[in-house]
């Protein structure tokens, strides 16, 4: 199916973030810090795309995306730590004299990148295999994945796990030989993140438009019907679960060098619910919604913690409640509704409106 998009608005989006913002920095209007902050938001947006695939399109509420995100981050972080020192300082404090075996492969950059993808994928595969095989779905799925994230969070908090405990991993100097503190590297990371976001968006877009994507949506609508139509739903769910985990991991991998720290705090209960909320706020079942939700919520977060530290949680809480109650389809849906309500713009027949809703899915 061909989409009849006018590409203008995509171009605008790309122009703002790929040209305008860097240009603003180069001309001194914005600081490199702002650029870096947006770079980090893009990483969240990449993970949000994964959440949208698994939740928005397939209807499986997975609460362990934050965990996969952290796996990606931790992998890169381990590599960066080993770039700097042969034995991380926290291990020295914990009376460990030899690098644990699972740290060894992270000396090599190529292996690290591979492992950052393979480990989350394997985790997702195992978790998904066990859960989908026993037909755990809906609420059960959400709670078990949440509990799993909680358990992993507790495990990562332990110092025995040898991943830095609560403090996580921090104080990185170079990535592939580039100095992480230099502005050029930060700008490049920003641009890379944006490029990856665009690529991920295009890939997800392709996927959702393919027959595979339709099967996912069909699973969301009526899983048993899909089974009786001879699709092995468990395999499809597993595939999209792994895919979502990979997207989260990629986001995490890019997130780390721009933030400079990864701690288990990134995957506590709060973080994992919040990640889902980005997508809910933006508009689930809509890739643009996921991206916009992730960018907007995090932008608001940065803003509010500077402006209204006390009431930030109220703002977030009310946003959650209102979104769920009144804007089932998130901001994207809200805009669609508003556009229909405004008389001047209301030129579609009901049939085409329906068509449009279907298309935008």
């Amino acid at each position: 199916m061909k989409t009849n998009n006018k590409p203008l608005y995509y171009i605008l989006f790309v122009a703002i973030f790929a040209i305008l913002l860097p240009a603003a920095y180069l001309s001194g209007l914005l600081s490199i810090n702002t650029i870096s902050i947006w770079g980090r938001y893009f990483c969240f947006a990449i993970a949000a795309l994964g959440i949208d695939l698994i939740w928005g399109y397939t209807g499986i509420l997975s609460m362990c995306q934050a965990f996969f995100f952290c796996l990606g981050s931790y992998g890169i972080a381990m590599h960066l730590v080993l770039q700097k020192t042969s034995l991380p300082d926290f291990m020295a404090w914990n009376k460990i004299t030899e690098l644990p075996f699972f740290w060894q492969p992270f000396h090599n950059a190529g292996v690290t990148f591979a492992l950052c993808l393979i480990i989350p994928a394997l985790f997702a595969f195992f978790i998904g295999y066990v859960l989908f095989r026993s037909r755990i779905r809906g609420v059960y799925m959400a709670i078990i994945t949440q509990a799993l994230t909680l358990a992993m969070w507790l495990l990562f908090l332990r110092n025995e796990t040898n991943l830095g405990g609560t403090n996580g991993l921090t104080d990185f100097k170079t990535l592939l030989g580039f100095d992480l503190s230099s502005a050029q590297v930060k700008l490049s990371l920003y641009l890379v993140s944006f490029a990856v976001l665009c690529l991920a968006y295009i890939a997800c877009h392709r996927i959702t438009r393919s027959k595979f994507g339709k099967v996912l949506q069909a699973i969301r609508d009526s899983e048993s019907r899909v089974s009786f139509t001879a699709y092995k739903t468990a395999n499809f769910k597993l595939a999209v679960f792994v895919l979502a985990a990979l997207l989260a991991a990629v986001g995490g991998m890019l997130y780390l060098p721009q933030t400079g720290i990864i701690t288990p705090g990134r995957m506590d209960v709060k973080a994992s619910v919040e990640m889902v909320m980005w997508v809910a706020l933006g508009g689930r079942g809509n890739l643009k919604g996921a991206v916009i939700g992730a960018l907007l919520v995090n932008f608001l977060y940065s803003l509010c913690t500077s402006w209204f530290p006390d009431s930030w949680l109220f703002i977030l809480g009310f946003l959650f409640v209102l979104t769920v109650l009144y804007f089932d389809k998130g901001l994207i849906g809200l805009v669609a509704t508003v556009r229909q309500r405004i008389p001047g713009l209301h030129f579609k027949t009901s049939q085409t409106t329906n068509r449009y809703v279907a298309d935008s899915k």
Partner: protein
Amino acid sequence: MLLTVNNLSVSFGGVHALHLDHFSLGEKELRVIIGPNGAGKSTFLDIICGKTKADSGEVIFKGKPVLGKSEVQIAELGIGRKFQKPSVFPELTVYDNLLLAVKTKKDIFSTLFFKVSPAIAERIHDVAARLQLNTVIYKQAGALSHGQKQWLEIAIVMLQDPTLMLIDEPAAGMSDEETEKTGALLLELANTHSIIVIEHDMKFVEQIANHLVTVLVRGKRLMEGTFEEVKNDQRVIDCYLGRTNAQLETL
């Protein structure tokens, strides 16, 4: 025989929902199953298509045992199911609903790189036209009327191209005209497929029951015979009395 069922039984929480000593269906046969509410008709179909697990007994389809197989395996064997409550994908368009049903390779990679060939598109439009869905083919399935959803689900089953179709109450919620069209369609399909139909509407049953009718009561097979035999059987009348005898009387 295409389908043979022996000593099939299932119970829910100690209540026997179904206890069927024998049932068989031939190639290209259209069988109608009737019976009062709670007779176990839907449960019977649920077991055949793998939705419900039987406690004991055997179901042989094309010489292969069916029990214990997953829904997908059963569907792949060539059994298609239409449910009592229309079960379609409400948020997909009618076209997409049908596209998913078309009998092709259904593993992950083939779906990921699937391209609609002209033959498939033609087939979809064909079936859609036969069920008068061609005017709404780009509409969301959720926006269809109840009758249209029934037809859509039948279309989905048709596109799966099964050997055996299990059709649960196809005429529910349809106008008389639609009901008659559905009947005609089923008869036409019976030329190329084996079909089991569950139905309450006796007028509809009369229209489509070209061969045998099976009567289930309280999970057991009461009798089997042509529509005429069934209609005149005292036991059948007795057990419908006080329930849906109004329907019988209209005959």
